[in-house]
């Protein structure tokens, strides 16, 4: 079962990545760079920082909304991968019990604050990574990486992996289903059967690679592969990058949340 959901998930994100919106049309190099800078900003906050992180949500929210990405899809994925961060982070409240602050009279330990901080950072960084692929096709990312001087051999590796990912996932899925159809309870899922399944999958994969190689040869392949460049940096790309990074700097320097909070609190009083 898990295989199937994963399979369809990756296919779903992949489909989203080929949409046509303003965000999708931005140069992949810009999106990668800005997202990376975003993450650096987010993780640069010290461990007790919580509310200052909030304004950073604007970036992933923007990508999601402008890129027409369904919120639920991203939400479910983030939830799905959260256990590790939670698992490690949960030790903070357990070990750091000194009360740090008392909002509304309730004592809250530093450990809880840092734990929440980890969670917020987690949501910010993970959702941004997902949204990056959701608004940029994988070949687009590969093209960007090559232009950012990553070795061509490696870029080709990424492209070929991507190309045959779905094919092999399909083969694996069918093998998995075939096995499930003849397994009962735990019988059939032992490591011995697994080894045989995987080995067969491996051999089939190697044979497939050999056939692909033959196909390449039959079309004149002699060692060089040319990958097209589809993107050129435009005004909007630069504008987007500058605006985004400037925004990150701003909200890092200026504690907007506190400002808003204080203004409102004063108003209430």
């Amino acid at each position: 079962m898990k295989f199937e959901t994963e399979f369809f998930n990756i296919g779903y994100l992949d489909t989203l990545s080929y949409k046509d919106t303003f965000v999708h049309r931005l140069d992949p190099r810009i999106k990668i760079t800005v997202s990376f800078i975003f993450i650096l900003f987010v993780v640069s906050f010290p461990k007790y920082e919580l509310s200052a992180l909030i304004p950073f949500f604007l970036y992933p929210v923007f990508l999601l909304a402008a890129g027409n990405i369904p919120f639920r899809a991203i939400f479910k994925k983030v939830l799905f991968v959260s256990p590790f961060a939670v698992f490690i982070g949960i030790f903070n409240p357990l070990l750091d019990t000194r009360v740090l602050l008392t909002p509304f009279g309730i004592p809250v330990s530093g450990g809880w604050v840092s734990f929440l901080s980890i969670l917020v950072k987690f949501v910010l960084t993970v959702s941004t990574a997902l949204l990056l692929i959701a608004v940029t096709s994988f070949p687009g990312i590969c093209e960007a990486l090559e232009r950012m001087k990553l070795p061509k051999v490696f870029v080709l590796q990424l492209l070929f992996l991507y190309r045959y990912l779905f094919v092999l996932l399909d083969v694996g899925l069918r093998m998995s289903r075939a096995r499930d159809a003849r397994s009962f309870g735990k019988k059939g899922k032992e490591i011995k059967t697994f080894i045989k399944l995987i080995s067969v999958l491996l051999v089939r994969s190697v044979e497939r690679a050999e056939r692909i190689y033959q196909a390449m040869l039959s079309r004149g392949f002699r060692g060089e592969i040319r990958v097209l460049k589809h993107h050129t940096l435009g005004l909007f790309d630069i504008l987007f990058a500058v605006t985004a990074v400037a925004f990150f700097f701003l909200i890092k320097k200026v504690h907007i949340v506190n400002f808003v909070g204080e203004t409102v609190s004063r108003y209430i009083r």
Partner: protein
Amino acid sequence: MSHHIVDLHDVHFRYPDGTEALKGISLRIVHGESVGIAGANGMGKTTLLMNLSGQLIPTKGEITIGEVTLSKKSKQEIRKKVGVVFQRTDDQLFMPTVYEDVAFGPVNLGLSEEKVRERVNAALAMVNCLHLINRPPHRLSEGQKRSVAIATVMAMDPDILIMDEPASNLDPKSRRQLINLLRGFKHTKIIASHDLDLIQDVCGRCVIIQDGQIAADGPSEEILSNEILLKDNSLELPLSRQYLRT
């Protein structure tokens, strides 16, 4: 024009593990002929095609295409004349987009970017897939993949078109489109298939392979209506003829 003649002279092929797949095939195919290769599984159809396209080299005997005899050295040259469409489309479409896949051959031929673009557009137009030009291959249906695979080969402007089970896994409509497409090609065509109805519709000549040898060779009309001959070679009448029979 002599350079389009395909000549097989007593061709034998033995696999590294000892299997004798071809045991003396002699065949002559002239320019523009459309030949269907039929035969039960394991009889040597695919091996024959692989030899014809230069993927494999006969262990005995000779294959000559145009004036070039197939050998290790002339493999590359043969490949330029012969376009092969493989059975599994996924093996043939390995680039990130349809454009780049169809362009792969022309680029390797050393053509200029202009010329490459021309060839790609022409090839895709030929198979009615121009609208798929920027699609990634894994987002194509089986029928579309098949058509694009043909385009990747046509873009190299081959003299001879070789196809291995071109209609397998196609839905009826795609299959019909493929048949119509192939009928429109003036190239020399060599098509291996289980689909005897396809061979009937597309190929004027039919060759039956049995146990690595030619069991029959003649006009498709004759061969494919000879029920006894077909049965002897583990085949049946084409479905359309079975219906007519009653």
